[in-house]
């Protein structure tokens, strides 16, 4: 119809792709950083435009109530992260950890990553979704290794090997889904279009679907970072540039989780297939408890928060796994809150490690004395991530724990235990870092605390007041997820 206004989906895909190409050719990091921010902002705008005008569903593109939440969240965090990255990268260049060439590479890759993630989110074709996630993974692999220190390369290598095995498994699962669909929907493109699949899934062969889900769960679960498939995650977070850690925790894990959810819906639709819920719930609990104990022995601040990401992915997977309107609502809310909070924490941690010149927890003390902004920011972040009021995660954890205990008390015991153990670990480290006699450099930090403030502001607001339309939205999606 109105061909003048370009389609929002086209924009959120085209802008990052184009910018990536441009950035690859732009020398001078100031300009490229600005371009980065600008394009991220434009993408965000385009994503918001999806609210007003949804594109009609095609064989490749789908924008429905489920993924629009992910898209907007994705573009928003990508934008704030690009703002943070601008100030972060400048400092890295000063101290010479990165060369201009690497920076050019870095910025191009950043946009490519956004492109990949957006593509994965809007894809209506499970094959396309697989390709996109694949691409996103490869770009992050390259960015994790960008410092080229032995640790960084090891982390990237580990990430790459485990990631590509996961990818292979996911592909096999995708093929199996197609095989299951073929007898029903016939050969050709339709066999991979999600909307078609979900329409006919009831008639699929359950055994094949089960097999497919096992591979998909393991394949995409590796990306989600669920234990025991998590091994790449802590090192990739710890050794890469902090903006990438923020994007990994805040976005990529969500995208992978989104893929898992799509296929969970598929299996839920088939009465003969095994229920995917228990598998997700069990993997989630395992990740939660495991990560909670792993938190205690961490020496590196970024690695610690990476483990906390595993923990929270476990909680989210658990929530979606047990299902039901309350738990699904909580899962969605928790996912969004975790993205915002965790990325904000990584912003803070990035500044902290820059002013203190170290990532070792033991060398960071008395932050609230020397850098009140960063110190209290860290305190707020840890409280928000630990699910304390008045922050949004309190609401989601409240719903998850209470509804679980009312429905399946024996599941609530490990859940609560894991939450408490993790809480103890985080607070133990927080006391050491934020309070006590200060240590290390007391030079004032020169960085914009705007992204941090924005994220925490949103998280705080969500904890106190959720806008009714948003709530209605969530409840609708929760009912979709069953």
């Amino acid at each position, binding site marked *: 119809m109105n061909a003048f206004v370009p389609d929002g989906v086209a924009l959120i895909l085209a802008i990052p792709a184009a910018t990536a190409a441009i950035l690859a050719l732009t020398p001078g990091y100031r300009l490229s950083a600005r371009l980065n921010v600008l394009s991220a902002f434009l993408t965000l705008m385009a994503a918001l435009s999806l609210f007003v005008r949804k594109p009609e569903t095609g064989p490749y593109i789908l924008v429905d109530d489920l993924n629009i939440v992910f898209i907007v969240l994705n573009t928003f965090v990508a934008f704030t992260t690009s703002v943070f990255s601008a100030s972060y990268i400048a400092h890295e260049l000063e101290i010479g950890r990165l060369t201009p060439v690497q920076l050019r590479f870095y910025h191009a890759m950043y946009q490519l990553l956004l492109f990949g993630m957006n593509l994965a989110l809007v894809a209506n074709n499970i094959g396309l979704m697989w390709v996109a996630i694949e691409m996103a993974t490869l770009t992050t692999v*390259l960015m994790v290794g960008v410092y080229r220190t032995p640790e960084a390369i090891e982390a990237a290598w580990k990430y790459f090997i485990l990631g590509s095995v996961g990818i*292979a498994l996911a592909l096999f699962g995708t093929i199996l889904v197609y095989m299951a669909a073929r007898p029903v929907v016939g050969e050709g493109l339709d066999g991979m279009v999600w909307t078609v699949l979900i329409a006919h899934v009831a008639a699929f062969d359950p055994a094949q679907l089960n097999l497919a889900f096992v591979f998909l769960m393991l394949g995409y679960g590796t990306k989600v970072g669920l234990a025991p498939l998590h091994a790449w995650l802590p090192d990739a977070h710890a050794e890469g540039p902090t903006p990438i850690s923020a994007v990994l925790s805040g976005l990529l894990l969500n995208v992978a989780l989104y893929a898992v959810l799509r296929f969970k819906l598929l299996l839920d639709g088939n009465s003969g297939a095994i229920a995917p819920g228990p598998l997700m719930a069990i993997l989630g609990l395992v990740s939660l408890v495991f990560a909670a104990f792993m938190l205690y022995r961490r020496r590196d601040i970024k690695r610690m928060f990476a483990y906390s990401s595993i923990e929270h992915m476990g909680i989210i997977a658990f929530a979606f796994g047990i299902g039901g309107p309350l738990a699904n609502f909580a899962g969605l809310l928790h996912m969004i809150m975790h993205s915002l909070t965790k990325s904000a924490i990584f912003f803070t941690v990035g500044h902290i490690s820059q002013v203190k010149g170290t990532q070792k927890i033991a060398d960071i003390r008395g932050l609230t004395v020397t850098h009140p902004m960063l110190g209290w920011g860290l305190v707020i972040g840890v409280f928000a991530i630990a699910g304390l009021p008045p922050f949004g995660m309190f609401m989601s954890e409240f719903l998850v724990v209470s509804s679980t205990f009312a429905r399946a008390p024996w599941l609530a015991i490990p859940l609560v235990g894991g939450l408490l153990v993790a809480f103890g670990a985080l607070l133990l480290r927080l006391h050491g870092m934020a309070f006590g006699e200060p240590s290390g450099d007391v030079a004032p930090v020169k960085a914009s605390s705007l992204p941090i403030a924005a994220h925490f502001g949103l998280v705080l607001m969500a904890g106190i007041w959720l806008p009714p339309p948003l709530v209605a939205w969530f409840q609708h999606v929760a009912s979709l997820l069953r």
Partner: protein
Amino acid sequence: MKGLSFDLAHLLAGGLVLVSFMLLYQNRLYSLLNVFALQAVVLALSVAWQAYVQGAPHLYVTAAIAIVFKAMVIPIALHRIIARLGIHREVEIVGSLGPTMIAGMGLVALSMVVMLRVTADADPLAREDLAFALSVVMLGLLMMVTRRNAVSQVVGFMSLENGLILAATGAKGMPLVVEISVAFSVLVAFIVIGVFLFRIRERFDTVDVQALDQFQGGRR
């Protein structure tokens, strides 16, 4: 005709599994690469046959990719790397061969059982193919797990991809998207691996993954 096509497809797929076992059996890098090339050839044959049977011309592309890249380019390149790194004499199997082979058998059996639970009305060719493909994938994984150094892990990974391609081609009428993505992924994978080997080369004198693992980022 139907019977013949079925038997041949069956034969080739089975041959692929057999070659995977041969891969598993090798303990010299050079011979490993040769066997891998052989596997690529077998794969190409089976893909071509599928193309013929299904009357799907685009599958010939896949076959060509298999022949060119997997059977020639990659083995040669890896030859170079091995030669330059001078690790061709390495015996690098974890544990001894016997248990590995037995485990391989078990895996094949497992994948058969799992696939044969699929209702029989899905056409038998696809079922058998998938069963073999699954076995190849599992064997490839087993190889990655039981090999110590990077090159052989890469080989294991690629034999795993072969299994995927077998499955994809066996899936009748699967859109082109998938083949492209597979080829693309293999390509990218290879490039990235190459990049990493060189980077690693800058830092260490060996691509033994254990040398990497020795870091483990200190006590973190």
